[in-house]
């Protein structure tokens, strides 16, 4: 008995000592360490798909519409936009929009820079070299685009190279890095060098669902316009426009049903069971799901629980003969003949947004159109206005309206450049409604065109937030609190 027991203890102790390492040296199953993430060419392709998938535009769409005069309160509003004050022009470092954008932009850069680093390290077969170059070119273009987006939202003045933008990140960051904001000049110089490198690597001319040479051309024109370097704009825009003629009325509808890509230079693909096939954060600038869920909970019909609808002021500007009316305004809308006389305006004047009806199988889920060639027409008009070529502006605007109406429309006339810029802004308001342009357009053109946020009085009864001039400091986003919490010395934008 005694000896047997001693033996058991001896064996037991031996067992424990030999097996102790199995209790500590544990590698969890199903983990992909960073050191093994990029091994071959196929991994680089997967990495590119991942980087592309980090690009989202729903926060821009949400913020540009709720903060400005694109929306009114919908009949299913449960405090969205009101409780957090976005609809009441409350914008500060703690708001969701600056944080959501900041996080999204830097997540894309973090992903892109890691892929660029991996491309340098991974050896590919000779036959794969061309495609590897293409991948590198595309990631560089994504990096340029993302930096330009950061500048768009966080720089107070695009035309001032000394103004501050955001952090310039063209490297894989380390966790202890406290960066400082770079200037617009530094931003533009990195963007330009990334784009020119990308242009030398990419061979694809056009690809509406991916990065192409035309994507780079469009981005370069857009940057020039934002910087008000109008010199080459008209020529470049006209040349690109030749390859992407404006969509006719049927094609235009097809673009928003996601069954056609006419005049689309770049869009973000959104598919069923893809990463954005979810409701997302409704009523919140984080958004990040079905595009249409920024305005309605369920679908784009009257039963779809719209919590925002089309603002009355915007609606009044859209001519029902315009194809854009068909795309924007839902068929089941309740349109009051005399909204001002309604005792219950919110429930008796429900102007449904149908631009993001969804695709077959999933209401509210649509591709996000980022670059459409119709904007090239506006760029040409803007360049003309800047050169005081007022009749040129009129011609360009008529060109667009003729296509949208499918018939000859009257030629507008302007007596001052301010009028012309105002007309450009008004037309953009319709053309790019709910696509994430309005706030940026007002920031850029509002002062030149004498326009600001101007809601219908009916839409601002709830909070008296009816108008905001385009010169207000809130046309630049604050650096979000999350960054300031870690990095208290970062220079904040004026007004915050």
């Amino acid at each position: 008995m005694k000896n047997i027991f001693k033996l058991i203890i001896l064996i037991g102790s031996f067992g424990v000592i030999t097996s102790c390492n199995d209790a500590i040296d544990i590698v969890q199953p199903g983990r992909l360490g960073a050191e093994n993430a990029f091994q071959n060419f196929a991994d680089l392709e997967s990495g590119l798909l991942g980087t592309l998938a980090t690009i989202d535009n729903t926060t821009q769409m949400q913020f540009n519409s709720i903060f400005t005069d694109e929306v009114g309160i919908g009949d299913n509003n449960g405090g969205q936009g009101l409780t957090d004050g976005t609809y009441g022009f409350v914008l500060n470092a703690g708001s969701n929009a600056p944080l959501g954008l900041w996080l999204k932009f830097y997540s894309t850069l973090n992903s892109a820079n890691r892929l660029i680093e991996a491309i340098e390290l991974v050896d590919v077969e000779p036959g794969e070299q061309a495609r590897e170059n293409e991948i590198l070119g595309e990631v560089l273009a994504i990096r340029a685009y993302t930096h330009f987006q950061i500048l768009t939202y966080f720089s107070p003045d695009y035309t001032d190279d000394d103004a501050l933008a955001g952090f310039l990140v063209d490297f894989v960051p380390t966790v202890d890095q406290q960066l400082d904001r770079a200037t617009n000049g530094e931003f533009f110089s990195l963007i330009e060098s990334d784009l020119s490198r990308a242009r030398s690597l990419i061979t694809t001319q056009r690809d509406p669902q991916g990065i192409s040479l035309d994507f780079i051309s469009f981005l370069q024109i857009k940057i020039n316009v934002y910087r008000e370097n109008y010199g080459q704009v008209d020529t470049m825009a006209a040349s690109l426009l030749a390859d992407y003629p404006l969509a006719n009325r049927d094609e235009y509808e097809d673009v928003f049903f996601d069954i056609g890509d006419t005049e689309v230079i770049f869009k973000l693909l959104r598919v069923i069971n893809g990463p954005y096939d979810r409701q997302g954060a409704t009523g919140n600038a984080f958004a990040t799901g079905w595009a249409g869920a920024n305005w309605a909970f369920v679908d784009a019909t009257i039963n779809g629980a719209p919590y925002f609808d089309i603002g009355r002021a915007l609606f009044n500007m859209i001519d029902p003969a315009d194809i854009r009316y068909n795309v924007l305004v839902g068929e089941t809308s309740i349109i009051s003949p005399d909204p001002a006389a309604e005792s219950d305006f919110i429930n008796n004047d429900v102007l449904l947004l149908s631009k993001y009806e969804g695709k077959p199988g999933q209401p509210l889920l649509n591709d996000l159109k980022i670059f459409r060639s119709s904007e090239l027409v506006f760029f040409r008009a803007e360049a003309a206005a800047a050169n005081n070529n007022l009749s040129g502006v009129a011609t360009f605007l008529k060109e667009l309206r003729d296509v949208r109406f499918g018939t000859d429309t009257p030629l507008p006339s302007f007596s001052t450049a301010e009028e012309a810029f105002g007309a450009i802004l008004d037309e953009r308001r319709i053309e790019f409604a709910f696509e994430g342009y309005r706030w940026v357009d007002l920031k850029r053109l509002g002062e030149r065109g004498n326009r600001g946020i101007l809601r219908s009085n009916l839409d601002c009864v709830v909070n008296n937030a009816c108008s905001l001039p385009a010169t207000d400091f809130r046309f630049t986003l604050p650096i979000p609190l999350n960054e300031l919490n870690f990095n208290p010395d970062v220079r904040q934008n004026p007004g915050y």
Partner: protein
Amino acid sequence: MKTKIHWLGLLFLVFSTSFLFAQQKTVTGTVTDSGGLPLPGVNVILKGTNTGTQTNFDGNYDIIAETGQVLIFSYLGQKTIERTIGNSTIIDLQMKDDTEALEEVVVQGYRTATKATSSIAISTVTAETITNRPNANAIQTLSGQVPGLNITASSGQPGAPPRVNLRGVGSINGNTDPLFIIDGAPVDANAFRSLGNNDIASISVLKDAGATAIYGNRGANGVVIIKTRQGGYNQKLQINYSGVTEFSSLQDIQDYDLLNSQEQLRLERDQTTGLGNGLTDAEIAQFSTTDWADVFFRTAAIQQHTVSLSSGSKNFTQYTSLQFRDQPAILLNSRLTRFNFRNNLTGKSNNDKFNFSSNIAIGYSQNDEPNNIGGAGINRNLVLGAFQSLPYLDPADLGTGAEIFAAGNFFPNTPFLLLDLVNTFERREDELQILGNFDASYEIWNGLRANVRLSGEYRQQILNQTEFPNSFNALIFAGPQDPPGFQIQDYEGQFLYNQVTSLTYNKSFGKHTVDGGAYIEYFRGFFSDFGFNADGLVPALAAPGDGSAFVPDNPDNDLFVDTINANRLTSGLFSYFFQGDYDYDRRFGITGTVRRDASFRFSESNRFGTFGSVAARWNISEEEWFGDSFVNSLKLRGSWGVTGNQFISNTAPRGINFDAPDLTRDLFVTNPGLGGQNALFLNQIGNNTLQWETTEEINIGADFTLFNNRLRGSVDFYDRTTSDLFLAAPISPINVQEVQININDEFPTLSTNSGEIKNSGVDVSLTYDLVRSKDLNLSVNLVGNYNKQEIIDLPTDTGEIINPGGIGSIGLQERGLINEYFLVRYAGVNPENGNLLFLDADGNETENPDVDTDRVFLGTNLSPDYQGSFGFDLNYKGLFLSTQWNYAIGIDRLDNDLAGFSDPTNIGTFRATGDLLRAWTPENTNTDVPSLTASNIALDGNSDRFLQSADFLRLRFATAGYDLPSQYLQGTGLNKIRVFVQGENLLTFTPWRGFDPETVNTFNPGQSRLFPTPKVFSVGLEVGF
């Protein structure tokens, strides 16, 4: 009747045998304690035989014996007495206190000591205050009973694990639960939902480092040791039954002054919104008022039945118990039904050299647990419906899911969405838990023992969640998917194995006693889960947990492609440690522990940590010079030690053993990319310097009994410093990872060891016998703790971390509190325009504070400064009455329920508080409620406007009952009948206006719409035979 005959026969036998044969006779007698009171449960054994009995409730025994045999009387804490049987058949006996054993054996982790020779800080709660308590979670019943143990209910869901913190919050991001040990098996806080509460014999809480260092790798936040009941050697079969019926209901203490239908409709009319807009007074008068809290909450009747059987022979004991508990909760669709079985065995060899014990407990429970509690989903959170629904709606108007869907206008119809959820949504977790352990010990040589302890816990949960196809929620999310409906099933299983082998030595040499041991501990954990989410349920076949209704994928579309998931994790720890204890003449003692611990979490960084402790005592009252005085006993204790924590994550959805398993690594994952193809994403940025979080603790205390043992108590002063804190340190968003899935959760942080916090305070426990007599005993008791938190060091340059964990209302600063409120100060209403006034950072009034720079630390948080309980125990001839009042002082909470009731933008959508009726208007300028159209109303979300004190004094527990005196039981075959009534949360005094000051999400102090803990009243019966 049969028993009565047996009794009569026995009496007859007594007379006849004693008269006729004289050698074999029945010896009877009464055993009393040193105070002359009858002592039940004394073991009476015939020396040298297996025959024995125990005294009954009145201290009486009878045993058949022969003249000349020796009876051994033994009882814990009393000197063992032997008596030789002479001519008399009656042997009455008064036991004497055993000064060497005092009255208690104290658990010390891997060994035991007597109370006098224990050098550590420990509090023990006995079965009496746990058994039959109307609460499914045994840990919850500890609330207020142990000084320094702060228990915070997270939910009124039956069995839900509370937050348990010992001596303050010991970490910022790491897990702060104490280690729970059930009969030697380490478990986590989730183990108690399936544990029968009547099996518990005692719960000991090890508090200072001297006590916990022996559990060094898991004991940094204290150790709670649960012992379950055992049979006694030489004990006849004892069967006990207890049955309890409980009635629980919503605590009716909210004080929000919520509007009735007429008030609500008039408010809506004034604000030209909602149903009231445009109604006439006459129309408004037509409406009746619905209290939706009465619709979503109910009075629930709960049943619990327990049967236990215990017995023992000379070398073997057993304890077996069965329990059934059926607990519908006060919230609709919430219920816990549980079945428990336990079997505890002990055995030993004839020569006492070998002994063993084994315990096995099986618990099976079905939990109907509504989810999304605390959330803002008007179609998901039933509590939201109870609190916020408009009073003028009538539950009788509930339509089908399709009708609600077609009606649109969802927000004002919130209660109907949720009543539909009650009818068309089922969510159940079946949990099976098997807890087993085996201990064996063999004395190899004179005081040297070899020991092994093996324990295992297997726990599986199967979740079945069904959204029926006719439900509103199925319809709303179906889109073109026809049929609608969803079903989720998820299996989760984990097995934990713990093994300790040791050599121990215990020997006395004259006045010297040594006790020491060397130990090796090995721990492994295995986790797996898998499940699916099926889209589309054929209505005729839809049934929870059954797949007949599933719809297959088809070539036309991807609407019925189901999602699947699977996950596997393992964990492990390895340790070796030594401990020694030395006692000199029961006057001085010293105890020490040293251990080396390795954790799988740090396998790539700093795997081993070294921990240890020293504790010493001086039993002053044992000194010869001490003499007799009003002090009966006095012992001073002191300890110092360092313990480690490797539970990095405090949320731990998979249980603390598996979360955050490899934060040292940079990881990528594959997920659907742009077009749904598999793509590669960065998922985790690792920290390859992670190591153990360590807690250094100093404790000085005293145990004493005074005034003829009438006053008993202990006082402990402690100072705990936790360094190398697990801290989710903020990093710049330039490091942000894959964000498109859940941006809300992706505030970029890095798990680091940085910073230092300190908790210091005092624990007090006192009991005083006011009256002590044969018939009447009355004692009063007090349990108290004062705790002061202080952050010593933070890793940032500014010494501040703002919004840790992404929680907007809180911050950390050096010299400040953990999760201190960091908000703009609200300063009332501007009488000029009805706008809100705030204070800027410098204390000047402003209407437009800067949400960044005008926030200040407010010096308060969710942790109490003072907390504990007081009460009395009264006994009079079998009647007993006891109360326990819990108190907590220094708790501040954000009342976002009140914020919701006060939000003018909710008018027309949700119910409002009567406070709004006195809102600022040009005519009513002197008020504390801002104008309903105040332009800066949205800014109050960043302010302390709704920060309220949640201090409370509450009658946490009261019980009254009657033990039938044994003379009435004679001849019935029964030896115990007890009837009792009990109550929990009967009465509360608090400035908090909400439904329950205690129910709180400790991780997110602003969370509202929580499931409050109920008020419970119960009646019960206990029978023994």
